[in-house]
């Protein structure tokens, strides 16, 4: 209920504005501190290196908007890289590999969604089981890392698209942008999207309004599962390998990106664009740390934790202020 009242006041924009400011601030800090940081290619690399995280964060935004959570995304990503690598190795045609991977993720999402809705189990515990299952299935396929040697598959990840001015991007960036645009369309211009927000605002109200609660509740997990497997494909283009230990803890980064992006964890309020900027903030922190060279990369985790805390407290304050 508090989330609904938030959506009526202008302060609902506050977290998203804060996220944009944070991004400008971190990128600016990098530009001031390091030569060559404020270049088009460094900015493009943010998208190239974090395309998989952006796709995951978009899927996660749907789930969190309904007030749920999906802990399985990192494992499903890993499973997808594994299926892709094993499939390519077994000589399957590339389009078939892609279809199988996307189907696997969507079906896993569907099963989790059905358990959550039909049996009324907490999303957290169901997706935890999904996380175990996907991670374990990776190791059923192979304990070792499988490298992808197929030339046409590798080309999907290696090919550069020149944007002019010496800046180039990869297919992964295009995929991430398409996912973002489609997600924005679905969330803001379709019945499904409106139901997602309504569900997060108040499930009983959404039910009383006659909205398709069950369909939407299951649907967001299918969306998240699909995005996770797509992110797995993107990741396998990026690394040209499948490995069961890829993306350990990535679910937390995705949740962090969504929360830093201004989406309320209670559901009902938030924007998918915010999540993407959230993912870019995380990417910028990583870039700054790698530019610096003396800082240890594990500072990334600590900074992410601190940012997560700051935004959670910010949300808390906003909800409390509008509730009273």
């Amino acid at each position, binding site marked *: 209920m508090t989330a609904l009242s938030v959506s009526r006041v202008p302060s609902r924009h506050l977290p998203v504005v804060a996220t944009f400011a944070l991004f400008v601030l971190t990128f600016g800090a990098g530009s001031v501190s390091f030569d060559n940081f404020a270049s088009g290619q460094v900015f493009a690399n943010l998208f190239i290196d974090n395309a998989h995280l952006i796709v995951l964060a978009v899927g996660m935004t749907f789930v969190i908007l309904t007030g749920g959570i999906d802990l399985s995304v990192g494992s499903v990503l890993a499973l997808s890289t594994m299926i892709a690598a094993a499939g390519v190795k077994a000589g399957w045609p590339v389009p078939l590999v892609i279809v199988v991977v996307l189907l696997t993720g969507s079906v896993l999402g569907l099963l989790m969604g059905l358990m959550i809705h039909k049996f009324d189990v907490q999303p957290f515990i169901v997706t935890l089981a999904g996380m175990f*299952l996907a991670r374990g299935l990776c190791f059923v396929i192979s304990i070792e890392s499988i490298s992808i040697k197929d030339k046409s598959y590798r080309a999907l990840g290696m090919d550069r698209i020149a944007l002019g001015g010496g800046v180039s991007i990869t297919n992964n960036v295009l995929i991430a942008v398409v996912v973002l645009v489609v997600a924005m369309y679905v969330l803001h211009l379709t019945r499904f999207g409106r139901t997602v927000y309504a569900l997060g605002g108040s499930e009983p109200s959404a039910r009383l309004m006659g909205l398709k609660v069950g369909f939407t509740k299951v649907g967001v997990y299918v969306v998240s599962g699909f995005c996770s497997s797509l992110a797995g494909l993107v990741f396998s283009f990026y690394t040209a390998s499948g490995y069961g230990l890829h993306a350990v803890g990535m679910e937390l980064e995705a949740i962090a990106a969504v929360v830093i992006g201004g989406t309320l964890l209670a559901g009902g309020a938030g924007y998918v664009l915010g999540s993407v900027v959230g993912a870019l903030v995380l990417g910028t922190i990583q870039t700054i740390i790698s530019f610096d060279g003396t800082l240890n990369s594990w500072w990334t*985790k600590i900074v992410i934790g601190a940012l997560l805390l700051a935004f959670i407290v910010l949300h*808390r304050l906003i909800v409390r202020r509008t509730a009273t």
Partner: protein
Amino acid sequence: MNRLWWPLGALVALLVLNVVVTPSFFSLRMQDGHLYGSVIDILKNGAPTLLIALGMTLVIATRGIDLSVGAVVAIAAAVTCSYIAGSDDQGGASTALVGMAISLGLCLVLGLWNGFLVAVLKIQPIVATLVLMTAGRGIAMLITDGQIITVNNETYRAVGAGFVLLPLAILISVAVLAIVAVVTRKTALGLLIEAVGVNPEASRLAGVQSRTIIWTVYVFAALCAGVAGLMISSNVSAADANNAGLWIEMDAILAVVIGGTSLAGGRYSLTGTLLGALVIQTLTTTVYTAGIAPEVTLVFKAVVVVIVILFQSPKVQSLFRRRRPAVPAPVAVDLTPQEVAR
């Protein structure tokens, strides 16, 4: 008692399966005054999980969850091993004791931090503990400087690998289980924890210090995780910030859920948690002895969780109840802690 049939049945089934595969499964032998055997191994390897699951049980009883225990395990291991490795007297007993004391002191602070976020700032537990779960492993990496720190200290080694007839690790976790059982049964603490889990606001109005209770359970959970961290790292005489306690929070939650404690809070069963932890460890051992890669255990765990949560879900429960109307639905608030602990 009804709720304990499921985990008990699962445990018995697993044990029978093991005996069929390896007939010598239950045999114990004495060597240098220590007991050895498969069952002892299961208990020893399951000790850290049981310890963390005990803390988790009380947290879940207050309708919370603690995702940060794995990170706390890594931090506890990192602090102790760094202290021992950096001291002048690396093999000394006092060095090990001081190192462990510092580490547990830090865990206490981490527990206070989690408790502060949940009890004072009133942030959802899953989110509040997510912060430490994310940052904690980074902190542990920072302490160990990204290296796996190995130590050579007999006193420290005793915590995880030592024996007094039985492995010390088993004795420690059973002692903690006994203490928790006595404290929650013989005092009102168990009842208060349940009251907070049923309705924090109502119990506060009824005069229960719900804030203090919530704070206490998070501190207890962090301390349990700290001791488990010492056990895990002492067993291998090393601190691995990346892998120590990885996914152990999931195992602990799993043990609690298998043990019949409802994630909705308000009632809990310590015996159930003990059974749950044993089921998980026996499952892991069974998969391992069957020659399946240990990583694949995750699949079996996932299947077990799915089955258990489906049976726990209100829909299936009401299905059972409809068939047997003679059995009244358990009402959480009517249970005394004595009944629950049984």
